[in-house]
């Protein structure tokens, strides 16, 4: 620190060189220095170790608490969706005539009889508002968690072990928890696959356009502009509507071809969603990749590769695309939630995944019948859907900050 005397001698704005603070270094005695310990030396060398691009990004990502929480939630959702169904002995399309319309809670058989009796009494007394729930409350009976049908309760009474319907069942007696798990799996798979399709088309198109440059670039970007200005929701609706019957028709008349077998595996409605998404949503990816390629192709190593006689395709594959990997990963990751969003929108309108398969959007759509009585049937898939989209968004944002710190706002 500068002393008051020192300040007096060298006031701010003084043009004299401040030699005294430099001379002060001579007064440091050798005893003031200390040898570095072995550990400090090791740390010094360890800090100099080279860090790869991904390790560096991961280090930055780990510091971002929001992104790490989102990643954890995504991991849990992944487990829930893929491992969950193995722990529940009901299939997602397993219907039951006796276990339909169960709530996520139940009353024991004796309680049910008591409630039934009280309800009859209330009805004959002219009370119209008497519902199972209100009567149970009046009788002081509290509901037990998990849903069981009457038959299942009887089987339990007979000493049999019955797995509960944890979140109840729907109108057809299908277990809601398993359906939510399968629906989550469906939404995730559709989101990831659609994002990969977009990546494939967008990156190829953008890289070719950016690398070719000149007139080819102009024409290709005009096409992108044209598609960009089309209102995509309308066209996606139209595409999904009209592609499904076309695919169905193809399956009907060519059931033996390889393509037909492939379609039969993923299902016509999902395939039409993929096609619609792939046709409409690659444009922003291609714009981003083109911008990157335009910058990168000015670099010396591209000139060097060209001088060595590398073909255009090789330069794009080996040099340009690997160098845009950060942008590609981030854009793909942020594409997943938008694909999930779109799928749930379509399924809600009755155009997406169709029975017996299910997705979170179609479960929400099914829940509209009897929404006032069975509100939880909408809330469960809706909450899972929102949490999933939110986590993907937050993780994507974190990934962007980690992979390209310059972009950080």
């Amino acid at each position, binding site marked *: 620190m500068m002393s008051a005397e020192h300040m007096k001698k060298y006031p701010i704005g003084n043009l004299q060189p401040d030699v005294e603070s430099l001379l002060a270094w001579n007064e440091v005695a050798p005893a003031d220095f200390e040898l570095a310990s072995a550990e400090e030396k090791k740390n010094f060398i360890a800090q100099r170790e080279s860090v790869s691009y991904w390790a560096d990004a991961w280090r930055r990502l780990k510091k971002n608490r929001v992104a790490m929480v989102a990643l954890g939630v995504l991991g849990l959702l992944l487990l829930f969706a893929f491992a969950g169904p193995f722990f529940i002995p009901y299939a997602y399309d397993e219907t039951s005539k006796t276990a339909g319309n169960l709530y996520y809670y139940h009353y024991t058989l004796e309680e049910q009889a008591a409630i039934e009796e009280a309800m009859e009494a209330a009805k004959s007394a002219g009370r119209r508002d008497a519902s199972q729930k209100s009567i149970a409350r009046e009788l002081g009976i509290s509901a037990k968690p998990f849903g069981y049908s009457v038959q299942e309760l009887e089987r339990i009474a007979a000493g049999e072990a019955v797995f509960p319907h944890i979140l109840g069942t729907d109108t057809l007696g299908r277990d809601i928890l398993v359906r939510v798990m399968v629906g989550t799996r469906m939404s995730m798979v559709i989101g990831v696959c659609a994002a990969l399709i977009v990546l494939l088309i967008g990156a190829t198109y953008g890289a070719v356009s950016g690398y070719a440059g000149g007139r080819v670039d102009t024409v290709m970007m005009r096409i992108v502009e*044209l598609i960009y200005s089309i209102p995509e929701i309308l066209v996606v609706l139209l595409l999904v509507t009209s592609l499904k*019957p076309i695919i*169905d028709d193809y399956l009907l008349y060519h059931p033996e071809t390889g393509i037909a077998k492939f379609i039969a595996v993923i299902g016509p409605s999902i395939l039409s969603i993929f096609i619609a998404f792939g046709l409409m949503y690659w444009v922003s990816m291609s714009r981003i990749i083109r911008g990157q390629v335009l910058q990168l192709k000015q670099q010396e190593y591209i000139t060097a590769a060209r001088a060595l006689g590398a073909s255009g395709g090789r330069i794009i594959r080996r040099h340009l695309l690997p160098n845009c990997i950060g942008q590609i990963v981030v854009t793909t990751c942020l594409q997943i939630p938008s694909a999930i969003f779109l799928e749930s929108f379509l399924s*809600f*309108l009755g155009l997406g995944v169709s029975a017996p398969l299910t997705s979170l*959007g179609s479960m*929400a759509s099914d*829940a509209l019948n009897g929404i*006032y009585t069975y509100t939880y049937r909408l809330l469960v898939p809706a909450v899972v859907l*929102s949490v999933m989209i939110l986590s993907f968004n937050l993780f994507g944002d974190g990934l962007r900050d980690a992979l390209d710190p310059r972009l950080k706002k």
Partner: protein
Amino acid sequence: MGRFFVKRVLMACMTVLLVAVVTFFLMNAIPGNPWLSEKTPPQATIDALNAKYGLDQPLPVQLAKYLGNVLRGDFGVSIKMMKNYPVRNIILEMFPVSARIGIIALIWAVLAGIPLGCLAAYHRGKAADSILRVVSTLGVATPQFVIAVVFMVLFTMGGVFPILPNTFDLANWQSYLLPCFALGLYPMCYTARQTRSSMLDALGQDYIRTARAKGLPVGRIIFKHALRNALIPVITYLGPLTAFVLSGGFVVEKVFSVPGLGRYFTQSILNRDYPVIMGTTIFLATFIIVMNLVVDILYRVVDPRIDIAKGGN
């Protein structure tokens, strides 16, 4: 300016044409014909019907005829849901309902979003800012049908707080509340977020410091000096927001049973009423494209610093 204008209008026309052509070919590629029902009518009847609706002519002829008709505002007649009723009349009757709800939703979104954005920008990093960020992040992640249904369960008859009617009535102002609110929530969050960021930009400018140094009151600085410049980008959101409100209308109108074009459009998709699907798609697409065009030109007029024709974006 003239060149930009011509280029932009040409581009918009191209887009509309593309949508119309794609629509036409998709609808023709669909197998089966609209006359199929529980019992198939005799071939003679089908031929007569095809001849009546011009479906027996070659595709290019049909396309040319269709495009000519579209230019005259003639979208053909409905063949399934309201038999022989002109699609144009369906659009003219139902679009005003959707438009009314959409406009109210947009107005509340902008009127609430801009002050909230200013508030968040002014209190940057404080509680108001954080609350807005959380709400808008959640608003972006929650699908609109969830918001709509949750509000319906919360506030209509039979729900948790039964204060609003649950059948939509055009003459009753109360039935507009929920659809407009649900439809405008996302645009509101979006406007607030964008206003916040452009307001932060504006507040960092030198002329704001000058105004502050002169001792002007805070309200005057924000609303007179900063907001005027911060609002210019808001114009650009109006294009995408219109598209969003129209597509969100499909869901919201379905949930609240609003007799608007959105609900009718989704019903006609499920019923495969081709002329209605084609007509509505072209009409709504044209509407959105024209809105985007107007917004682009308006932006240019309001802020001459931006030169879109030269690639500034």
